[in-house]
């Protein structure tokens, strides 16, 4: 029994590891499913906008698709309210949000990023359908 375990422990470990690597690779190279509406935003600017989001640590208080901090609202679809709405909050802050000193370029990049998040779908739980098997989908 012991020798059986000694042999199968490393084999099982290796098999699971190989499966994990293949699964990971399939995610890294998958190009087909991620772009819903690329025409709705500037692809280059949104890439920079992602870095602006990170530079100001926005996720500490805000969420994208419900992932992030909970002091402020989810911002996945905030770009629907327009550039000036977003810009006003960035410039003036809110109750617990300080006024952020973004450059004009950074504000534009961040807004393009928020347009990209909006184009990917809705984060509103009311927009999800419940399936018979317990799964949900938009």
């Amino acid at each position, binding site marked *: 029994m012991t020798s059986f375990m000694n042999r199968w422990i490393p084999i099982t470990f290796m098999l*699971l590891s190989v499966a994990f690597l293949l699964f990971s690779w399939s995610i*890294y190279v998958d190009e087909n499913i991620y772009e819903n509406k690329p025409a709705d935003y500037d692809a280059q600017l949104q890439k920079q906008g992602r*870095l602006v989001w*990170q530079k100001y640590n926005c996720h500490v208080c805000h969420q994208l698709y419900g992932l992030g901090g909970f002091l402020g609202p989810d911002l996945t679809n905030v770009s629907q309210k327009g550039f000036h709405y977003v810009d006003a909050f960035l410039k003036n802050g809110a109750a*617990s949000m300080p006024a952020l000193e973004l450059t004009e370029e950074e504000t534009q990049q961040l807004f393009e990023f928020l347009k990209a998040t909006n184009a990917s779908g809705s984060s509103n739980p009311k927009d999800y359908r419940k399936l018979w098997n317990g799964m949900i989908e938009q």
Partner: protein
Amino acid sequence: MGSQNKNTGNLFLVTALVLFMSSIVFGFLSSLIYRYPEFLKDSIGLSGLRPMHVTAAIFWILLAATGVIYRSLEAPANQSKLGLLPWLHWILWVIALIGIYYSYAVGSFGGREYWEYPPVFALLIGIAWILFLIAFIVRIKSIKKWPVYVWMWLTGIVYFLFIFIENYLWVIPYFRESFVKDMVIQWKAAGSIVGAYNMLVYGTAFYVMEHISKQANTGFNKWAFALFFLSLFNMLFNWGHHLYLVPTNPGIHYVGYLVSMTEWVFFIKIIYNWKKQITEAETHFHYFPYRFLLAANFWMFFNLTLALFMSIPVINLYMHGTHFITAHAMGTTIGINTMILLAAVFYFLVPKKEHHQSRLLKAGFWGVQISLLIFLIALMGMGLTKSLWFFEEPQAPFFEMMARSKFWIILFIFSGTSLMISFFLLVIPLFVHPFRQKPVSLKRIYKNESTHQKT
């Protein structure tokens, strides 16, 4: 050699305890912002405090587990020497920590959830982790038959390194081409890396359990290996449950859903073992390492119940994006990981049962358990308020929903304060004890401190 391992191990344990206490203080300050939004708003703010809290909490787990592994694998006289490697390992961590906290203080962020520091410091941590892997392999190569905790530690160390690298793929522009793809990889890494350091912690639990019960076969138990592989399977493939609402490949959602459901086995196993543990508890209850392991078991039951429901997508829909998620994260970090690591810290730094007789220590222990329960209830209350707000028609403004949570926020702050005080009662003597020439009872340390204060 043995003495060198012991010193390095203790150094990691004490460094981890400093981080643990820092995490509690930063967490307490962060909680005040929920009630008093202007607090520190124009200085460090939540954008600085939360990374300080989260980084200290994660590094407490990593460094405490590292200290435990150094202490557990204290080398016999014939084992090859590691020279200065463990010291270099520790120094790299200290440099990284100083750099990271300086960055937070001046508002320089990498800005990824849980890993908010600029990516340059990840290089130092990565190199430190490679040194740890080398030290670990050198230590275990002389062990002919590996108990389950050695497998768990090896898995945790190797996979942490792989996932830690994956966590920084975002610095390559290719991985930021699509926001959703970037997010999938981010949460794939975030989910799996928790699994990797949980492996280090669960390995620690098996080690301490084996040494308290003095049953050498615990580490070779078939059930232990079955649970190890189930944990590994979940670590590698169950992270998809973070992404149910993210519009990605449905295959990712289904894999996460199905794999998460295998965790029911853990759930059933905990219930099955309950009676046996009560019998054991009668023998070991006054020994703090055992008491912490027993507490971890209770919190595992609590958190696993929450996790299992959250892993069902239709239920997740009502809990996602709310403080139920925070309750789960805090519950596992404090209730499971911290309890297990404190068990190990007590086991190594204050090994003798007769040194655990202290009323303040007992008050600290029970204070932690009761405060944590109230703390988690408060978070779930906040979560429920937000969940109801999500589905109401018409939906009130966000600030109104926050105002409805006032009672839960106050409860959250009070229970958090009580949790902080209780942890301090438990942890402060641990700094004093290991550095005494002749270890004494923790009761005496308290007595001496109070006498000293009076004079």
